[in-house]
């Protein structure tokens, strides 16, 4: 494979395009609403009406407005159809000949779509994730070529540093610095890992990226491997995402066949292979040291850092771990330049961020907006606010490690620093909207139960602390708790946060702390004031260990 071959594939693919393209969403959300059958009927309808020469039916990745799936778009008519059934196929196909259809129309010009800015999702909904040629036609693997043939590894690292890209997994560590650290270690075995263990309940960005555009992640990993000097990569993906796994397997196979993975890529001395590792349902494995244990086939328990994976990671070798979305940004940065990327977003948070909008909101689905976009624009203008005339009470970001942002802070720009100031985190990008029917103490207990179940048991503060906090929250919800119990809960939050071994325990109190900060009255209303003795000590002993 040389650049001419790549261009030829792209040309051939573009030349094979027909006058009309009917794009049918084949991501997990729409698939579960039967989009597979819709696509088959569309193909049949095209054949039956003899339009083969004129119309292409393409299965594509996520088209974002998941709540209205299955989604079908007819180009160039710019007509979006929602909740399409297999029976609708004939009339949708008929529209290319000027026919009419009664299928529910969506508005591609609504704020939900027009306010988005796509980098990571630019191919999502356009390329066929099961055909590498479709990705190549969208300038795919060009960045990898340029990197291998025209740039030194150091130049690549510098470009990423210059772009200001920060880790999209949640903590926001500067990606270029991480790459630089791994690159500086002595030559020898090094690894690149893609963290696709998207365990946060309520987050589905990584799943969508893997299902919609798996090659962009592979290309990003290959560029990273060249920059740091690694020859082997792993993608650690959740077993709960069977479609993403199968699309990745297909993508890896096709990339190998095309010579874009394997030995001597683009006739350079660079070799790179990627293997999949399937998780087995452990939230803690999203933590990088636990993830590496799991890749090694062991129990996924974390270990103290330092040493950081960049120095001593998988099998003791220097290891670069980045999130799916981080890798998906890389090829675009190389192609369009660091300056272009750095011009998007805020001073400290560059580029865009993909969010998964869900919960009590009209438009659930995927959105990609520049960093610094105010929450209000995301959830009200784009998300359409709470459904059925409800009002938004809070927005939860960052999953079990994050916090609830109250409605009166909706004008906060969403970037790493602003969210941290509100006691939440960017997290991987799940955004759960809650309306006035949601009880915040209930939400706090929901997350605490999650952390309690998912605690790996290695360190005591997390293992025992989460159980105690859960019981205190249950006691509050049962209206049996006193002011002393609330104080005890706050003390425990402080202790677990400061003494736990890994991120799971350190952030487990966040949902409690943030709801206490903004919705303290809800806790106070639930307290049993009569049980409080005058000296402020609880009469009832702390909840006994019942679990």
């Amino acid at each position, binding site marked *: 494979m040389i650049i001419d071959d790549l261009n030829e594939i792209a040309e051939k693919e573009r030349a094979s395009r027909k006058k009309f393209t009917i794009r049918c969403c084949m991501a*997990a959300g729409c698939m579960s609403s039967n989009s597979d059958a819709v696509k088959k009927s569309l193909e049949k309808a095209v054949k039956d009406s003899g339009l083969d020469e004129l119309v292409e039916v393409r299965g594509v990745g996520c088209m974002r407005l998941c709540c209205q799936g299955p989604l079908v778009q007819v180009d160039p008519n710019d007509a979006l159809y929602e909740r399409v059934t297999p029976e609708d196929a004939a009339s949708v196909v008929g529209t290319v000949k000027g026919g009419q259809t009664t299928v529910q129309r969506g508005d591609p010009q609504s704020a939900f779509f027009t306010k988005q800015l796509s980098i990571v999702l630019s191919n999502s909904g356009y390329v066929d994730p099961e055909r590498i040629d479709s990705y190549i036609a969208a300038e795919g693997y060009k960045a990898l070529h340029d990197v291998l043939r025209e740039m030194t590894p150091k130049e690549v690292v510098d470009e990423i540093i210059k772009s200001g890209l920060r880790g999209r997994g949640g903590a926001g560590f500067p990606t270029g610095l991480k790459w630089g650290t791994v690159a500086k270690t002595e030559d020898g075995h090094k690894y690149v890992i893609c963290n696709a263990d*998207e365990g946060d309940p309520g987050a589905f960005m990584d799943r969508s990226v893997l299902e919609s555009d798996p090659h962009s992640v592979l290309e990003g990993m290959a560029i990273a491997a060249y920059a740091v000097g690694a020859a082997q990569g792993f993608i650690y993906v959740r077993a709960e995402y069977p479609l993403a796994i199968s699309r990745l397997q297909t993508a890896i196979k096709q990339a190998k066949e095309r010579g874009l993975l394997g030995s001597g890529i683009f006739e350079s001395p660079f070799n790179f292979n990627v293997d999949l590792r399937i998780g087995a349902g452990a939230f803690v494995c999203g933590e990088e040291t636990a993830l590496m244990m799991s890749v090694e086939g062991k129990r996924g328990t974390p270990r103290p850092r330092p040493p950081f994976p960049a120095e001593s990671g998988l099998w003791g070798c220097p290891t670069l771990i980045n999130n799916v979305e981080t890798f998906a940004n890389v090829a675009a940065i190389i192609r369009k330049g660091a300056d272009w990327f750095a011009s998007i977003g805020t001073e400290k948070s560059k580029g865009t961020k993909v969010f998964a909008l869900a919960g009590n909101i009209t438009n659930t689905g995927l959105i990609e907006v520049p960093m610094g976009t105010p929450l209000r624009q995301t959830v009200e203008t784009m998300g359409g606010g709470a459904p059925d005339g409800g009002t938004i009470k809070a927005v*939860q970001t960052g999953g079990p490690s994050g916090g609830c942002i109250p409605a009166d802070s909706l004008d906060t720009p969403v970037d790493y620093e602003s969210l941290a100031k509100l006691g939440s985190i960017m997290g991987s990008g799940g955004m759960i909207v809650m309306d006035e029917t949601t009880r915040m103490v209930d939400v706090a207990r929901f997350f605490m139960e999650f952390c309690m179940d998912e605690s790996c048991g290695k360190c005591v503060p997390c293992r025992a602390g989460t159980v105690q906090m859960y019981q205190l929250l249950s006691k509050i919800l049962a209206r049996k708790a006193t002011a002393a119990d609330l104080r005890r809960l706050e003390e425990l939050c402080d202790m677990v946060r400061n003494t736990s071994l890994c991120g799971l325990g350190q952030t487990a109190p966040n949902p409690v702390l943030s709801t206490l900060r903004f919705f303290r009255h809800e806790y106070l209303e639930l307290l049993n004031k009569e049980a409080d003795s005058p000296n402020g000590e609880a009469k009832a002993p702390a909840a006994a260990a019942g679990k």
Partner: protein
Amino acid sequence: MIATSPKQKQSRLPEILAHASGDKRFKILEAHMKKHQFKHDALIEVLHKAQELFGYLEDDLLLFIAYKLKLPASRVYGVATFYHFFTLKPKGQHTCVVCLGTACYVRGADKVLAAVEGKAGIKAGETTPDNQLSLLTARCIGACGIAPAVVYDGTVTPRQTAESALERVKGWIGHDH
């Protein structure tokens, strides 16, 4: 003490291997281990395959894997019990997995679960006595856009309510409940 325990293990192995030789599934499993060159880091992959073939991971199966991969049985058992995805008990004929991710939760997945629990007379994580239905929960299947989602026998189904869920599992629940 130390001398006796390996002896016990030794005595069970020939039996397991003899049993395995008559079961095609063990051959498939062994071929899968071979594909991974019997590497220790492939343990989780091998357990996935074993569960896919057998439905659940019983003790003898774990001992077989330990023997073939040359790993201590404690390590295999430790890994199998650490991850939620692996089950050491047989599942029912049908499975109903209620997603309890945040998005599904705020949209009423707890009510869906309670309805099925009440109807089937079992708690989440249990199987009905007639072995027809296993009721499970998931920590987010990533289908938040269509919450609340329930997975019936591997098929993700969108926007469930207590009523639609009961309608769906009706045929799987014995009439004695």
